[in-house]
């Protein structure tokens, strides 16, 4: 088996002195769509931000491509961060730049491409997420779903082999959110990139996930790990089943 892309070992994380999550261990294999699932406020975004190196954990180890992001210094961290893409809950586009400039900025800063080449890549990335018509719009002029898609395009600018998504479909209507799921699945097929997706919505995971872990705010740790179908058929604790069946998805996808 190939080495895991992301490896998390005995992680304990939180803010100041309050522990949000503890005893988190998992690994993400190459090419996998890996979903981190859990109710609102259980620490999914917190976990993601620790994995991508924005915060330091209290305890434990995080390896990305076998390299520790916990022990890395500022410069090493920046270099490691360039090797993956992140899309944030609200897109996090830079408000003072147009959609196109948001993407070209990354290329201008980190590559030696000429202006024309950058132009071409921007167009290509935007059409990948079906946003080519909005290249010259400001982020404030497009809808939330479009912002997320533009955020995905920006995260893909450097063709990373590893992508992180924070709640890609939260706050979107069911159709847009289904489109976004399809887009992510599409991207993963096309690029073969490994994807780590954080979500509290079940629609997305059941359609796109290879493997799932579930976090729980009561026990402050992960309560389940495995393929979505396996978890549904053999939930380790009742709460997992409750969470997974609550949305009516079971009926829609597996019992028809």
């Amino acid at each position, binding site marked *: 088996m190939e080495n895991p892309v992301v490896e998390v070992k005995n992680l304990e994380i939180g803010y100041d002195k309050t522990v949000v999550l503890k005893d988190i261990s998992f690994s993400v294999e190459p090419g996998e769509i890996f979903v981190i699932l859990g109710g609102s406020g259980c620490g999914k975004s917190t976990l993601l*931000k620790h994995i*991508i*190196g*924005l915060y330091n954990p209290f305890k434990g180890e995080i390896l990305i491509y076998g390299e520790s992001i916990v022990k890395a210094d500022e410069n090493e961290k*920046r*270099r490691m*961060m*360039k090797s*993956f893409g*992140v899309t*944030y*809950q*609200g897109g*996090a*586009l*830079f*408000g*003072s730049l147009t959609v196109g400039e948001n993407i070209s900025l*990354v290329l201008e*800063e*980190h590559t030696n491409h000429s202006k024309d080449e950058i132009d071409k890549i921007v167009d290509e990335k935007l059409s990948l997420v079906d946003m080519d018509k909005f290249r010259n719009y400001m982020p404030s002029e497009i809808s939330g779903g479009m912002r997320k898609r533009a*955020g995905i395009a*920006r995260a893909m600018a450097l063709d990373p082999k590893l992508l992180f998504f924070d709640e890609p479909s939260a706050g979107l209507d069911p159709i847009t959110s289904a489109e976004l799921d399809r887009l992510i699945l599409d991207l993963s097929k096309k690029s073969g990139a490994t994807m780590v997706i954080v979500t509290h919505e079940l629609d997305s995971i059941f359609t796109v996930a290879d493997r799932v872990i579930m976090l729980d705010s009561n026990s402050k740790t992960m309560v389940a790990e495995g393929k979505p179908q396996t978890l549904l058929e053999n939930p380790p604790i009742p709460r997992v089943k409750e969470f997974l069946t609550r949305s009516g998805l079971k009926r829609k996808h597996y019992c028809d």
Partner: protein
Amino acid sequence: MTGRRKRALIHLADATLKFGKDCTDLLSFTGELADCLYHAVKNPKKIRWRETLYYMDMCGSDALPIVGAICFLMGLILGFQTAVQMAKYGGDIYTADLVAYSITKELGALMVAMIATGRAGSAFAAEIGTMKVSEEIDAMATMGFVPFRFLVVPKIIAMVTVIPILTVFGDIAGIFGGFIVGTLKLGIPAITYFNRTIEVLTAMAFVQGIVKSAVFALIIGCVGCMRGFQSSCDAQGVGRSATSAVVTSIFMVVIADAVLTFLFTSLGY
């Protein structure tokens, strides 16, 4: 000790500690800024010139009317107050001296700094705070950018170049305010007032005001940005950080003014 005195003392201690922490925070912030500026100077192509120009526009040309109006009125008020006192001794013409000196050495720079605090300082804090809320700062970091280079350096460059220029305008407007009082109220001939002003005003008085204003600009820019980065990630947090940017800036500016005035006077200017 009575309860009230005790509480007052605790308040004082609290405030002192907070001020101490602000000072050390500001120092470490300035240290990081110095590092970034050093890199920027070594590699000017990497400076975000577009943003820098935007902030020059915002802090400079957009503030011109209000700076003109306030400094003019300041000169006018100062002229009136002086004229009343000087009239007792029949020294009307000294109004020109007092207005010229107070405006160039002190009030021009101070008024421009107050305006810049309200306009730019609070805007910087709110802008960076909002970017924190919308995770733009996080996004910047994970894209391998140094947020300082993108968010702080352009603002500081803009402030430090534009505020001294505004101060020159403010000085001229203020002296003109005194001139209006001198000629219209006191009936001093325009040419006499003008000549007197030129005669008494030394280059060093001007320079002193300009140096002060550059220092103020640095303080206002740094405090604004620092408060933005310290903002908590919610709407109220952004509001608080903007308020505190203004309060801290004014406080630090006044302290810096005291120190600089002391320095300049002890150097004999």
